[in-house]
Structure formats: C-alpha cells, structure tokens
C-alpha cells in the first residue's frame, strides 16, 4: 500500500486505508474454511486412529480425483456467472465413448482423445446455446444433463465395459512408486495450482471476474465476453471428460450411470468455497479448502461408520453454520460498535 494515495486528497484520517487488507483470494471466508478444516482434521485424528495416516490420505485423494477435477472449471464458470449442471453427464458420456473406442480396438491414447473430444463438443454445445442463442445456462444445462446422460444410455444401455487399459487403471488407482502419493493427485495439484494462479493473477481470470460481476461493463471494456464464456463451457466439458475417464479407470468400469448426481456435489463444493451463485465473487483458494473440508469429513465419517443420516446432518449443519456463525458475529460486532460510537458522542 502506498502512502501517496492517502495523503493529499483525503485530509480526513482514514485508518482503514493504512491497515493492510487481506488479499482478495484469502479473506475472512477462506479463514473460516481453513479453521473448519483444521477443526475437522483435529477431531478426526483424535477420534479415529486410521484417519491421520498416509494410507488414508492416499485412499481419500484417489477417490476424490474425479470430483476434484470437475470442481476446477465449475469454479471458473460460476465466477463468470454461469453454471454447468451437465458436467456429470458429460463425465459419463465421454467415458462411454472412450470405453466403446477401447473395446472397439482403438489404442488407449486415441480413445482418450476421442473421449475428450466428446467432452469438448458437449461443452461447446452448452456454450453455443448460452452465448449465441442467449438461453440461461441453468436451464440449458438441465436440458443437456438429460441429453448427455441419455446418450450414454443409448450407447451402452445396461451394459458395462470393464476391460479397460491397465495404464489407465494404474493411473487412476495407484500411487507413485514407493510413495503414498497417488498419480491422480499430482495431476490434480498441477491443474488446481494453474487454475488458482490464472484466476487470481491472470488476465483471463480478471476478465472472468469482470464478466461475472457485470457482463455489460465487461463488454463495454472490450472484453470478449461471448468467446470467454464459450471457452469456459468447453473447458468444463474437457475437464469433465478427463475426470470421467479417470473415474472409469478408478472403478475399472464404464457404465451409463457413472457419476449420476455428481453435479450437485460439485456445485455444492464451489458454493461452500464462497463463490457466489450470481457470479463475480469468490476465491479459488476457498474452493480448494471446501474440497478439502468435504473430503476430510467424508473420510472421517466413513471411518467412524456414521450412518448416512448423520453424514447428511453434519454436512448440512456445517454449511448453515459456516454462513450463519460469521453473520451473527458480524451483527454482534456491528451493534456493539454502534453502541460504542453513539456513546462516545453523547
């Protein structure tokens, strides 16, 4: 913070300006989430001897790969004020195409290419409908949620393909040799760090925030609002495809039902991460912390044999608590402040 900006123009004392602000990507919400993660880890470690182990890390990270990957583009899209509810269907459709290609004798890489292309096309269709036709993304992607999932069923009916290339299953199931770090985790970290840096430090990220806050202003600023949104939908499709193929490797099976309902968990994590449903706000760090929190809680409750009912209630209370407690304390703080300043005057 520079001193020059405070001095001359504002003779009024402005202590707020001197106080160093938290960076936009690590604000009070991220601190709240971090505290929750720490609390959850502490409780889990204290109550389960199996929690704080390398094996548990490895297992949890491997299991969360598909979900984790999909969170990345969803965070970007929602910052841009859009949403893609078709991700889990794209996830299944791409894996289906991949699986059919593999069982049709295509090599692993070409088959992956075909699967990813499917995802890209699926994303592009969403993008065109939203940007060029001008339909709201929520309803477009509710439609393509059905369409893409339906196409997987058309292609596979009730069959499953479980003869998948060993390279893929190794990637999706195993750790780097001699460590407890899954291959997939490494891939995710690379993607996540790149996505975080680009969103908060990149020109593209800045543009996406502007678009989400006020698309009209973004357009008047010469930003390619349409192209960027279209690109984000394609990105979403591509990542969903990669996630879907990786997940197929993880369970060694391609089925039309793979990942059913996953979209709501993905959206839920992005929202818990503090990204606004209306766009323009939020931080990728928050999203990563939310992902971590959800993974930790799932692992803890599974290890503790918690019933689904309990898991639901804990998850729900956590989400409500996470927004309500800070809001309450803010209110308390404000009313105390008001009383104090009123007192000092009278």
């Amino acid at each position, binding site marked *: 913070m520079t001193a020059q900006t405070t001095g001359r123009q504002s003779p009024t004392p402005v202590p707020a300006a001197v106080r160093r602000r938290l960076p936009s990507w690590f604000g009070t919400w991220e601190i709240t989430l971090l505290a929750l993660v720490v609390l959850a880890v502490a409780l889990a470690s204290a109550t389960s001897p199996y929690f704080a182990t390398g094996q548990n890390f490895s*297992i949890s990270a491997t299991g969360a790969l598909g979900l984790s990957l999909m969170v990345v583009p969803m965070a970007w899209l929602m910052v841009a004020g859009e949403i893609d509810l078709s991700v889990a269907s794209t996830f299944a459709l791409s894996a289906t195409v991949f699986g059919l290609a593999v069982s049709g004798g295509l090599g692993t890489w070409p088959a992956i290419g075909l699967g990813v292309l499917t995802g890209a096309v699926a994303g592009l269709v969403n993008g065109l409908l939203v940007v060029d036709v001008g339909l709201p993304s929520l309803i477009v992607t509710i439609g393509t949620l059905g369409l893409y999932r339906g196409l997987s069923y058309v292609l596979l*009916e009730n069959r499953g393909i479980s003869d998948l290339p060993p390279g893929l299953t190794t990637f999706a199931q195993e750790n780097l040799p001699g460590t407890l770090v899954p291959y997939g985790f490494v891939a995710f970290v690379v993607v996540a760090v790149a996505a975080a840096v680009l969103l908060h430090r990149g020109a593209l990220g800045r543009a996406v925030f502007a678009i989400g806050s006020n698309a009209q202003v973004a357009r008047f600023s010469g930003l390619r609002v349409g192209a960027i949104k279209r690109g984000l939908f394609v990105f979403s499709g591509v990542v969903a495809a990669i996630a879907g193929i990786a997940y197929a490797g993880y369970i*060694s099976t391609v089925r039309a039902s793979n990942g*059913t309902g996953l979209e709501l968990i993905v959206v839920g994590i992005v929202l818990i991460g503090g990204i606004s449903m209306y766009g323009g706000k939020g931080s990728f760090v928050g999203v990563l912390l939310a992902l971590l929190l959800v993974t930790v809680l799932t692992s803890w409750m599974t*290890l503790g044999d918690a019933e*689904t009912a309990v898991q639901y209630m804990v998850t729900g209370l956590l989400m409500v608590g996470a927004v309500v407690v800070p809001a309450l304390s803010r209110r308390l703080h404000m009313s105390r402040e008001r009383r104090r300043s009123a007192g000092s005057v009278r």
Partner: protein
Amino acid sequence: AAEPSGPPPPRPVRDCNLTMIPKNTDNPYFAAVRTGMVDAQRELGGDLSFVGPAAGDVTGQIQRIQSGRQRGSCVIGISAVDSSAVAPALDAARADGSRVISYDADVSDGSRGLFVNMATADELGRAQFEILARAMGNTGEFGIVSSQSTAEVTNGWIDVMIAQLDEAEYSGMRLVRTSYGDDDAKKSYDAAVALLRAHPNLRGIMAPTPIAMEASVKAATDLGVADRVVVTGLGNPGNQAELLKTGQVPAYVLWSPRDLGYLTYYAAAAYTAGEITGRAGETFAAGRLGRKTIGPGGEVVMGHPITFTQDNVDRYLHDFETTG
C-alpha cells in the same frame, strides 16, 4: 491391483471386525438381512459393522470397503451395487489382508473368495415368471417394471424370463417393454402408468423388485385396470403381506433375508477362521441352517425361492423382522 502375497493368517471370528456392506441401508430387506447377521453374531461373536450408503451408490460402497480395509477388517462382505465397479477397491482390501465375500449380489469373479447366493438366478427368474404366466393364463401382453437398468441380479432374472418365453407353453405371451423405476416409488409408479397407458391390452406387470411391485399395483388400481392386469414379481412380506391378503397380488417370490444374513455371517466366520478357502466341495457348519457346501465358482447357494401366497405368508413373517 497387487495380488495378495499369500492367504492371510486365519483369525477366529471372535477377534474379528466384519464389515458387511448392503446395497443400501434405508431398505427393509437389508434391515432383515442385518437381523440375520446379528442372530449369527450372538452365536459366534465378532464385531459386526453393517454399514452402507442410505441409497445405493457405487461411491458410497467403495468408501465403506476402504474404511473396512483401513480398519483391518478380517472380512469385507458386500452386496454389490455394481459387480465390476467395486472390484478394484475389494482387490486392494484383499492385498491388505482382508478376506472378501459377496452376498445377495455378486462381484466380479476373482475379486472375492466366496459368494453367498440366496437361490440361483434361474430358479428365481422362473419362480416369478411362473406366477405371472399362471395368472395370465399363459397368454397376453405383459411388461416389466424393474429397478435400475444396470442392476445385474435383476437383469439376470429378466434374461431367464425372456428365455422362458421361447418355450412352447408360453408362446401366447409377449413382453412388450422393460422399463426401469430405479427403486424409487415415483419413478416406478410413472413407469407403470406409462406402460399401462401405452399398451391398452396389457394383461400383466412383472415387477422383480418390491418397490416396483407396490407402485405397479397402485398404478393399475388408480387407472382402474386392476381387475384385468396381474402384478407380481418380487415382494417383501415384511411390509407387503397385505398385498397378498387383499388379493391385489396373487403371489410373489422372495427368500428369507434373515437366513441370508445368518448364512453370510457363518460363511464369513468359517472363511476367516481358515476352515474354508472358497474351493468347490468344501463344507462348513451354518448353525440353524445346517451344513452348507461350496459349489462351483465359490458360490454357496442358500436354498430355493419361496413363493408367498395369502395362505402361507404369515408363517414367514419371522424371517422379515427388522429389530436390532
């Protein structure tokens, strides 16, 4: 996944944690299975974790397998939502020294040592089909309202039924459509309504899962066609005895879920104690059910399907208790 380095050392069930994973917990059928397991646990000891997702999903099952693996459960037993999808997780658990068995719904060969089956698919398919055929007088159109389209056990029965249609005796019967209600009351109801309305000549609905049967009965009643459309399939006397008593369903098929749980627990105990290894021909004591023999493919068949009617259903209610 890595192969187990050798068979894990035998462990008496008394010192064991057994992770038994149902397809879904919020289901009276699996609650009865659990009752049977608890019966056996009282007799044999051991620490039973009967855990699973509330609504059947692959991810939820995999998480429970892994939790069993991390706890070092000596047995992981599963009724698989998807036979191949849970296999990698089971393989990993086996590599870490757990013994894996399946019950009710099998997993891929090679990923388990033992499968406790209630009855053969052939018998179950036939038993259900025969009720329908008899009630329809071996002629007319019928449709199927099944559970998930990917439910392999049910699909196996449906295959058996379709094969039956080739027999001369049933040449007058025609399957018009198989639809899926995903074991959800609303979807099953909607599927049954669609079936009935799209096929005005329909004479029967085969519902090889209790929720679909309940929904199909309601759909036929609501559309006012209950008098000409027969509904049957798989039913649960635990909460569907009335369907028989009121005559809405002539008869339906099931087995004793309580015995299935009981037998599974005994098989698990013998398996972890090293008494059996899963080879065909081995036998083990199964408490009140007597001695059981392992068949080909490591499959233990509990018995035969039971056809429930309004006359016999009350005698079996004990098998469907869900206390404990």
